[in-house]
């Protein structure tokens, strides 16, 4: 989403600022994410929806069309479609056309597996569709480490097909990790190469991400690097406003610096459940289902959960922090899935309060859904890899080894010179 807030005749006339208005919620979401299926050909280590296998209760084509009709009535201008891998659904292209025909624009995220030259040409012929290709490394090595073998090549082929079909301004969507945060300039070059725009988002400890967050989330010094890079390059890069926790480093980043969960954003999952935000697929943030009597509108406007999220929040432990106005306590989902209190600091608080909180006693919440494959396939990434200790040239020598050369390391042997 590209958000502009310039068009305001000064001085401000309304009683409340825009941020305050948003905190109280809108009649319809600005930005709605809709995961169409839990099925996926990949098994990314950090998948925020723990996707893999289709859920038998997933919405039918007719039910999906009814949701689109309702979004049209509510004037939700566009939906972000994701999954799982949404293009795996046999009716995906039909639903795409149905949404566009009903004035609901579509931006969909894909790993590129179905982005054939034919499909790319079809997409290039419409104005209302935007495509995001997920890439989590500027090189195959870094990408495939978390997304699985071959996934980089698939994404690049998709980008090539889109560019060749004349599709303008696709998005390259990157989750920033400890491993790829040093590749930001390379991602930017990759985007330029395919006439695309770079989109960076924050790694959340949601779904399977909870298991790997400790190893993948950017280190504190990398957060500063990321912030500086965003300040320098922010105009050309989309962020989904997801790095507002970094605003406590200094000047706020462009975009909305607040948590929009249940206020301006929400998520519809493949079975029609409505959650407060795309990163909070958990019973604690479940507001209702689109198949309930009042449909999506009633869930958005009347559910108990969303009403409470829109009521005034206290800063809790963060209220006394002088940076509270910048980061507003950070990301609700990041706190929840790392077992931190929701009214305390973000686990990646740039003032260091997150690390203190993480060091204390906490219990990670049990997941309330998991559609991961039960048996790993050849597409599964392998994060834990066997390597030798870099400080040992050879395995340790046991006392009963018979080899006369055991323990002999030529490199370590110094040959006396004549001068000595």
């Amino acid at each position, binding site marked *: 989403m590209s958000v502009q807030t*310039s068009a*305001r005749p000064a001085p401000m006339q309304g009683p409340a600022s825009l941020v305050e208005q948003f905190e109280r919620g809108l009649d319809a979401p600005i930005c709605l994410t809709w995961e169409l299926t839990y099925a996926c050909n990949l098994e990314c280590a950090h998948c925020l929806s723990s996707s893999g296998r289709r859920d038998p209760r997933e919405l039918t084509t007719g039910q999906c069309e009814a949701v689109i009709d309702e979004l049209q009535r509510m004037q939700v*201008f566009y939906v972000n479609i994701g999954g799982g891998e949404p293009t795996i659904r046999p009716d995906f292209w039909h639903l795409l056309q149905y949404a566009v025909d009903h004035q609901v*624009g579509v931006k969909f995220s894909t790993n590129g597996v179905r982005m054939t030259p034919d499909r790319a040409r079809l997409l290039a012929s419409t104005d209302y569709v935007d495509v995001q290709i997920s890439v989590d490394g500027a090189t195959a090595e870094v990408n495939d480490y978390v997304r699985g073998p071959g996934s980089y090549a698939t994404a690049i082929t998709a980008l090539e097909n889109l560019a060749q079909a004349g599709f303008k301004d696709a998005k390259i969507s990157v989750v920033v990790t400890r491993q790829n945060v040093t590749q930001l300039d390379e991602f930017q070059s990759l985007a330029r190469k395919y006439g695309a725009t770079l989109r960076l988002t924050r790694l959340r400890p949601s779904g399977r991400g909870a298991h790997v967050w400790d190893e993948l989330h950017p280190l504190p010094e990398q957060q500063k690097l990321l912030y500086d890079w965003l300040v320098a390059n922010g105009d050309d890069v989309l962020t989904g406003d997801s790095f507002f926790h970094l605003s406590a480093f200094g000047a706020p980043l462009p975009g909305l610096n607040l948590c929009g969960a249940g206020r301006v954003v929400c998520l519809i999952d493949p079975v029609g459940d409505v959650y407060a935000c795309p990163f909070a697929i958990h019973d604690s943030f479940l507001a209702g289902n689109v198949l309930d009597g009042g449909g999506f509108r009633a869930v958005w406007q009347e559910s108990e959960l969303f009403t409470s999220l829109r009521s005034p929040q206290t800063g809790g432990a963060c209220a006394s922090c002088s940076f509270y106005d910048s980061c507003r306590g950070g990301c609700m989902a990041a706190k929840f899935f790392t077992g931190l209190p929701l009214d305390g600091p973000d686990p990646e608080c740039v003032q260091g309060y997150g690390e203190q909180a993480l060091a204390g006693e906490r219990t990670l919440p049990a997941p309330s859904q998991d559609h991961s494959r039960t048996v790993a396939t050849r597409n599964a990434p392998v994060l834990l890899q066997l390597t030798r200790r870099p400080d040992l040239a050879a395995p340790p020598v046991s006392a009963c080894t018979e080899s006369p050369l055991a323990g002999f390391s030529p490199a370590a042997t110094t040959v006396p010179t004549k001068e000595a």
Partner: protein
Amino acid sequence: MTPLDEPWTLSASVALRPEPFGALAYHFGNRKLTFLKAPQLLEVVRLLAEHPDARSALVAAGVPTAQHRAYAAALEGLADADMVRRRVEVEGR
């Protein structure tokens, strides 16, 4: 000549959604979302096409003269994002 003396209209690919603070404007072509941060600005934007120039749209929406310059700036900001366009009048028809 200022933008207020020119004829304007809302772009064809823009949809408006009224909100308590004003409105959301979404451009389906360039996919930009803009906040119109005052209900009166929404009214002005809606009236543009019916009036020979922006100034008379401002007057019709009841915007005080003192605020006209601020509205002219807002209009230009909206034009930069292609939310509104200068209307091309076809002469002699």
